[in-house]
């Protein structure tokens, strides 16, 4: 088996890590912040590069730190693009010159790690980072003894122990290992173990692995929690958010429910109080107070907790949109990820000065992504409700154009008429599927996909979208079959 290893992990091939403005800035000037054409042009030149299979390169492909600072690859590339012409370059001039400039430095080794830029581009490593390099590891032909692990192949014994620890939260016992060693079909036994562990308290219980996976999406604050385990200023019950998240990740449920559900979920328990599964809440079930009308619900984005925490007192709920991008699409707009500027934006309806060059880079994406949240009450009006007159009633003094702010907006470059449509576009995107898988990849492997693992990673999220109909548990059965997981 030949595997490629990176000295440092790098998720470079995802659209949501795109820094189009940043990459453009490398090639133009620091004043020319927003020109999202370079990543696409790069992928036109190298359509088979791993960085282009699931999206576009990240800003770090040409940048070091905060743009417009360039890494060595970016510097080499910039020097080859129409060097005699005055900066900033015209977009069309730049696009015309980029392919030739890329070709001219293909044989160079910009980062000095011993691999040419072309080799690195085609293997999915960073040509501007000497710690990212395509090391070839030849397992076949190696000699030696390892009586505990099959270090060159998917090792069922290793996978069995790992599945038990990852999903059940404990090692197998000596007796369980003895029984496993007697199994006629070890791989099937590994999957049987996974199936059993997926219902374990360690995995689905309160404060279990799935629950903890939701922490950074929900960002709980006990002091303002309502209901069970409530705080001193009870505003909303985030347990509903956790339960909806875990519901969407378990059994045969659809992972997209985190964005699209118009219902809430409850935990069902056995006689000992252990959670056995999650189910849609019925009228007989007790949930926290949730006042959004069914037709305006958009999963975890419209729970009372999310609106209280992320809309709060703002006319234009940018934080709510940014948090949704982070939580469900894996894109942090504040880090120049997922930028897809909308022409004519930002309008600056709330008079915050976001049309300044340094602001518009992000706000040309963020503001139109935020408009669909505008009628959802946070801590103003009737808390946690949908109110079509919210802006007119509560925010008239937020700017002379504030009442002209539309509910229509954009997400991932697509126009949407309201938040439920926003949720549907996002939930059906490649970005959502890949971000969903990435969370489990990180949880179970402890790192982002390496260059050698990109193919398996891409297959996982594509299959999640396709054959597995967004069922996370089926994806997890695929994940434990990967070399990334099962080769010691």
């Amino acid at each position, binding site marked *: 088996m030949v595997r490629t290893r990176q000295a440092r992990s790098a998720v470079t091939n995802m659209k949501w890590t795109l820094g189009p403005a940043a990459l453009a800035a490398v090639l133009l000037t620091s004043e020319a912040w927003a020109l999202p054409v370079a990543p696409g042009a790069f992928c036109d030149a190298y359509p088979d590069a791993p960085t282009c299979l699931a999206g576009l390169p990240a800003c770090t492909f040409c940048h070091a730190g905060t743009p417009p600072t360039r890494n060595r690859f970016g510097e080499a590339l910039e020097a080859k693009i129409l060097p005699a012409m005055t900066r900033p370059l015209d977009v069309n001039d730049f696009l015309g010159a980029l392919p030739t400039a890329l070709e001219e430095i293909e044989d160079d080794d910009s980062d000095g790690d011993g691999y040419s830029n072309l080799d690195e581009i085609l293997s999915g490593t960073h040509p501007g980072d000497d710690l990212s390099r395509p090391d070839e590891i030849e397992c076949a032909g190696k000699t030696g003894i390892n009586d505990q692990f099959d270090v060159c192949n998917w090792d069922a014994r290793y996978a069995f122990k790992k599945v038990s*620890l990852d999903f059940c939260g404990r090692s197998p016992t*000596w007796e369980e290992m003895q029984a496993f060693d007697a199994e006629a079909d070890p791989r099937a036994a590994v999957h049987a173990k996974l199936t059993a562990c997926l219902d374990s308290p360690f995995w689905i219980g309160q404060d279990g692995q799935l629950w903890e996976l939701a922490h950074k999406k929900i*960002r709980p604050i006990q002091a303002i929690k309502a209901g069970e385990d409530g705080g001193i200023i009870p505003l909303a019950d985030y347990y509903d958010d956790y339960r909806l998240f875990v519901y969407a990740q378990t059994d045969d449920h659809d992972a997209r429910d985190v964005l699209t559900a118009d219902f809430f979920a409850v935990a069902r328990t056995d006689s000992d109080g252990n959670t056995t599964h999650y189910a849609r809440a019925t009228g007989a079930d007790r949930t926290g107070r949730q006042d959004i009308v069914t037709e305006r619900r958009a999963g975890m984005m419209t729970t009372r907790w999310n609106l209280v925490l992320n809309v709060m007192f703002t006319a234009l709920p940018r934080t709510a949109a940014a948090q949704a991008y982070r939580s469900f699409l894996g894109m942090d707009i504040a880090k120049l990820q997922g930028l897809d500027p909308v022409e004519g934006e930002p309008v600056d309806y709330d008079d915050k000065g976001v049309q300044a060059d340094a602001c518009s880079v992000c706000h040309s994406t963020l503001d139109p992504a935020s408009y669909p949240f505008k009628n959802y009450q946070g801590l103003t009006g009737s808390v946690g409700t949908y109110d079509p007159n919210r802006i007119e009633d509560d925010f008239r003094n937020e700017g002379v154009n504030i009442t002209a702010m539309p509910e229509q907006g954009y997400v991932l470059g697509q126009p949407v008429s309201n938040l439920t449509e926003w949720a549907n576009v996002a939930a059906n995107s490649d970005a959502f599927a890949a971000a969903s898988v990435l969370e489990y990849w990180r949880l179970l492997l402890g790192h982002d996909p390496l260059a050698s693992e990109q193919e398996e990673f891409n297959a996982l999220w594509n299959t999640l979208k396709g054959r597995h109909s967004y069922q996370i548990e089926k994806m997890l059965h695929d994940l434990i079959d990967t070399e990334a997981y099962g080769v010691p």
Partner: protein
Amino acid sequence: MFRKTLLIATCTLLFACPSSEPSEDGGPTRDGGPGSIEDPNRDGGTTVTTPSFLASEKGSVRFKKAKRIEADFATALGLSEVCTELGQYSCSDFIHRITLGGVEAYVQGLNEPLPFTSVTTPLAVERMALFACRERVSADFGNPSSGRIFLNLPLANGALADVEAEEVAASIQRLYQRALLRVPTPDEVEHHRQLYRDIEADGQPNAARDWAVLSCHAVLTSMESLFY
């Protein structure tokens, strides 16, 4: 004095580990490569060559963290409660939770584990292991015929009457099977026996009990036990 014997135990067990170079992240080690290596143990001045150890090229292992460590210690030692501080605060769920890679989202706002283990992580692990091992040994020594690990040891005035006794080897084997899911190598058994000899030579009044606790501690705090 107990600290001194703890040091002896640690050094003894470390010496039992195969020779290897440390990896960049301080994790498991990598040896090997094609061919064979020279065994540092020489027999009558003649170098003995043994096949090289075929190491994982990935070298990717992960710290078990609080919940898994507690569960594994509990299972290995047959305990319902692994460790409490001041007799009432759970080591893994409360006192050392963050240090051991856990989170505390609701009050502290720590929504994700720390990316690295902290300088106090080894101390917390050792406290948990020591607490649990003392519990196990107390139970086993209190009821020698029905203990979980240290069973029917040949005791005489707090010492092992015969460190070569089969019951000693059987106890070590049970410890390895329950904690590491494998049988110990002959070298490992001998190192544990040597640990006892060192403790006894130190003049400890309860040499057998100290040895049992420290043997347990050494195995539970090994890299093989704490990483996966």
